[in-house]
């Protein structure tokens, strides 16, 4: 299961970041690391990107990148 599969309103815990190129590094810097608790708050009008809460702030990222973040339900 990846972050992309989490429904709007749902939450999860990060298991692992798969290799997604350069942006993987940025995603980690933004605080999405192993064990981080994430809530999916909203999706943009056209369904993409999504808005998540991580470490107490709002972060928006694309679904393609969310698909590289492996999560487990929390």
């Amino acid at each position: 299961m990846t972050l992309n599969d989490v429904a709007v309103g749902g939450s999860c815990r990060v298991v692992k970041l798969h290799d997604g190129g350069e942006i993987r590094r940025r995603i980690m810097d933004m605080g999405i690391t192993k064990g981080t608790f994430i809530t999916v708050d909203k999706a943009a009008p056209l369904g993409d990107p999504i808005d998540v809460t991580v470490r107490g702030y709002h972060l928006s990222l694309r679904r393609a990148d969310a698909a590289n973040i492996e999560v487990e339900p929390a």
Partner: protein
Amino acid sequence: MSATFALVGNPNSGKTTLFNQLTGNRQFTGNWPGVTVERKTGTCKGDHSIEVVDLPGIYSLSPYSNEEIVARDYLAGGEADVIIDIVDATNIERNLYLTTQLMEFGVPVVIALNQMDIIRKREVKIDSKLISETLGVPVVEISALHGDGIDELLETCKKAAEHPQAPDPVRFSEEMESLIEHLQDDLPAGIKPEMRRFYAIKYLERDARVIGQLGNMPDLADHERAVEARFGDKADAVITNERYNAIEAMLGRESQKQVNRAVNTERIDKVVLNRVLALPIFALIIVAIYYIAISTVGTYATDWANDGVFGDGWYLDPIAIVDPDAGAQARYDEAAGPYEEAQTLAATYLEAAAEDGVDQELVDSVAVNFLAEPPEEAEYALGDEEPDPESPAAQRALADFEAQAAARHIVAEYSVVDEEETFETDYFVYAGEENEALAQAMADERNEQIEAEGRSGAAEAVAYSFDGEALDDETGEAVPQGLAVPDPGEPQQYGLWIPGIPALVGPALEAVDCVPWLYDLIMDGIIAGVGAVLGFVPQIMILFFLLAILEGCGYMARVTFILDRIFRRFGLSGKTFIPMIVGTGCGVPGIMASRTIESESSRHLTVMTTTFMPCSAKLPIIALISTAVFGGVWWVAPLAYFMGIASIVMSGIILKKTKPFLGETTPYIMELPEYRLPRFVDLLRSMWDRAWAFIKKAGTIILLATVAVWFLSGYGIYEGRFMWVGEELMDYSFLAYFGNAFAWIFAPLGFANWQSASSVVTGLIAKENVIGTMAVLFGGAGETWSAAFLQSLGATTGSAALIPVAAFSFMTFQLLCCPCFAAMGAIKREMGGFNKWFWAAIGWECAWAYALALIIFQLGALLVTGAFSLWTLVALVLLGLLVWGLFRRPSAPAAPGAAVPAAPVGKEAA
């Protein structure tokens, strides 16, 4: 003591606000991540020996976008004596993540814990003492916005600079530490001891820039395998994880949940980011901003500036604000309206009579004797004869004129449109009682026609009357008619009248017997040209005020979120929107704002297209065309902005399919900051700073350009002699020769006159010059030069019906063609010199503007006149190319890297 303090912190954590507090500067601040893209230096307010450096915001020290490289290179250079690490307390975990990296530079770190006022208001507990003790660096609680804790911060920093002590970096797990230690031994000897840990970690993280700097290093593969076996993850992930774990351990796991209580932000986002409402709300906000700035409040203010300050003058009249009908202007209009109308009516009738065969001599005599401002030809025809309506000769001429006009049954038609441009009154003017029935019949017929067409208007028959009285139907009193209506006199008699600048300067110059050429230079050159530009200051201030609200409140980042999906299609990122909006103020910071865009091809594309958005200097062009040609309808101004957006989008689609832009996908990851209510003083300050820059420019560059235009258009060579050519022979001026040399280029666009061509060139110096040049070339101070400009367009296109089309094409070209030199300089900097990228940008902008204006003019002409020419064919071919460019498949298959992320996206949309 002299020292350098570097301000480092996450984007949007308040660095620039703190910088302004420390230095007393007024650098621009906003509420989105990435406001500062360059490093700025200032000296400390109370102590000029201390230098403060404001660096662009960064999330970490892995160089991901350009501004992060700027920050990191500066810190690695070792110039800073103290790092002031500004930490946003409302987002403390992620902010401290950067802190753990900053502590590895071997430079003293002082943490400025910002936004503590908000934290206290939300009744959250953040233990700054605990942070300080755990990390071993001083922590000062501040509020950069309110200026709290700034002195304490300075004192702490000074102490840290006097007794520099490298912080003890956060330690990782044992295995990691031994690996880092091992790598430190392998580093080249030239690296300073305190920096060795930093380089070892970056090397372990496979940071491409560091690997390039270090050169020959032992292979990492074995170490990486060991890390992977032990931690089940890559080294960089493990290190990041351990940093965050250390912060969590310090703050306690629940810390973030407490802080996250920005209830208002959640509420606003529920509406603003609502899946159905988000796009309409966005469109509404954009239309509202430009509509208010240009069409409503803005027009009101600009009218005042143009007709009042730079025109005849205006009333200082507080009553008029409450009740316009009771104001001095209304009283003056009440007296002046009928007077002017009677004068125009009489002049119209005289003209009609002359055309219909009444003796020209009689017409001229009546005009000179009875009209307040007779036509020049009539005055010339009568020679030096002094006008005297009472003289027997004048009375005789009047009687003869009346008899002739009546005998010929002359009825002149004269139409008046009211101020709101909604109601048209058609007068049928007749002479002699025997013609009343005829005029009435014509009026009746017109009334029927108006009714049949459903127009708003009325027709009536009016008695010819050059002097005389009529009895009022109700009161039975005699009311002056025709030219007997008294002159309203000077506006001063009706209230406190402030004369406009031309009305003040003109008589003053005359009083001191100013030499004619200097008089003309000041009145028709400087005041007309610079005044035409300054007249737009109110509109521009309103635009800047609204932009300041937009930039300060936190909505900008939301828009990137809303638009990313759309912009990605065009090879751009949602972040492209920020340069676009900043660019509507001025193109230079707009182009610079593109630095936050991570992908290089996307950034190039953004730099190439940002100036398609009309900047504030182009706003007068829009305002001119929308009022002079389209009667100030509400949609022209937003349309101009829409055209800018459409040009960016279409350029994106077309260029993304060409080789240099193929392949690379644009990443998008963006923090959505909390909404903030911008402080009113900050809004005013931001508005004023930018408006002042505009005014300063008008007083320097625009002034010089206007004087040059005036000289070049005033002097020329006529019949082989160098001479003053003036208004009559302006077509022989130097500027005319110059403009004519390439005016032909614009022939297919519908504005081949030398004046327009010259304004394209002066516009390169600054876009305000377009209007300034026009004002000088087409009229003097306070005159309605826009009408003369439109007339000249009619003359070049050979048809009055084509004027609106040519004017629209003119606006399109001027808005989209390559920007002013200052913006070109910014493009050069962002592209890295006068390289192929720079020329590609300039070339694309010019070609795009030319093609679009050509299509608009030629197809518009085809619709209006039905005439088909070779150029119509060219326009159709260009349109075809445009459509092909938009819809063709990319010339080569996209690189595999691009195809992969695209796939799930497509699935989502379906």
